[in-house]
């Protein structure tokens, strides 16, 4: 069970959280302006990066906040977590293990 670093509550057990998938996929401001392929890209296409991955988490059985986190999908270690709306932080060791 992961220990998920909630930016509000600190590290807490994974069972308190719901993972919401890849982060930084903003809902298009005007969905009608997108063609079908672009809309499908927004709805369905995900990177599933092997390495550092930005993802959404909801502290559903805790403070109730959505937030973003960077996690290495090979080691499963968390590298950062940050509040919704903040930019993805740069990592000095990005790409490494």
């Amino acid at each position, binding site marked *: 069970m*992961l220990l998920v670093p909630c930016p509000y509550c600190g590290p807490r057990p994974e069972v308190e959280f719901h993972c919401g998938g890849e982060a930084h996929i903003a809902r298009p401001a005007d969905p009608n302006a997108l063609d079908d392929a672009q809309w499908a890209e927004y709805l369905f296409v995900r990177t599933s990066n*092997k390495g550092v991955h930005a993802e959404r988490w909801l502290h559903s059985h805790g403070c109730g906040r959505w937030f973003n986190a960077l996690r290495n999908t090979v080691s499963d270690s968390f590298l950062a977590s940050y509040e919704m709306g903040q930019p993805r932080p740069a990592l000095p060791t990005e790409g490494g293990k």
Partner: protein
Amino acid sequence: MRRFSISSLLTEALNGHQGWERQWRNPTPKAAYDAIIIGGGGHGLGAAYYLAKEHGLTNIAVLEKGWIGGGNAGRNTTIIRSNYLYDESAALFEHAVKLWEGLSQELNYNVMFSQRGVLMLAHNVHDVQSFKRHVYSNRLNGIDNEWMTPEEAKDFCPPLNISPDIRYPVMGAALQRRGGTARHDAVVWGYARGADALGVDIIQNCEVIAITRGPDGAVTGVETSRGSIKTKKIGVSVAGHTSMVMGMAGVRMPLESFPLQALVSEPVKPCFPCVLMSNAVHAYISQSDKGELVIGAGTDQYVSYSQQGGLHITTHTLDAICELFPQFTRMKMLRSWGGIVDVTPDRSPIVGKTPVKGLYVNCGWGTGGFKATPGSAHVFAHTIARDEPHPINAPFTLDRFRTGRLIDEAAAAAVAH
């Protein structure tokens, strides 16, 4: 290829088994092949086998980054069934089951396909409606699947707890008698041996690190940990790692890769006759020929390539198993492991062409790819050889996510695969 038979076995027994030959060679990669399959699992090796056998493409190679069968082929709970709801899925999985039924003989390798029946439990009114919908749909598609009362289900699976007092009482069940299990490693080895005998090069410890493309965008070859290899056709069959490999060709996929766990108990004498699935409480159980209870758990909730998940996922599954089979709490978990499954938004696979010429993909099987192995391999080979899909895999395009013509088995049935 030396045929396996009781007589060859007895002959060798007298000879101290000195005369058996390698089941597949250990070749050095050639500079070029007519086609390359990336991924030495059951799907990839099977595709190579059918390319060679049915399409005459023998100058081909299967590239495996580790050892063949080391991915999901060797990590699943080996459930086989074809009682899917939608015509498209039913056709695909039934194609596979028909091939399973003759696979040991086809490959001259006992894959131990055991048609002991797959029993799926209904625990609420919604399940009952959904399962009957499946049963009727299967009937019209020519697929066996029958509705059972709780008492009939218990007759078929005597350990089952059908007490009305349990948390989620059994209200009935759907049984596909032709469903069952097979020996996962044997499928891999059988296809490898068969493909090798037809001239296919199976190259292990060969990791693809790049896919090269020409000026027209078509594939021209691969860069591997064992050098460059030229080819005009590449079939990607790398469950769990599809997004990464397709990314080498610049194709982004509607996939997420999740850990999936399973476990076995210590071996015991036969106590569980069939495969039993309960989607409502998330329990999947059968007993291997060795005597172990084989139990499938769910996926973890996050993308991971670690082949390791949390204990709470297996706990959740064992909670359900012990609710249905309270006699099993004193059984012991012997071994647990994880695989990586790539999951599509509609929980149906993608088998077909891609936007890149010469690049074909077979992926997105989620938690249910093993059962499709021969069928998927067969139609994937057809797609690669003819550069057009077989009618059976034609609906399973990448493009369906654009048009909205999804094949949403999960949504339609609340049935995990």
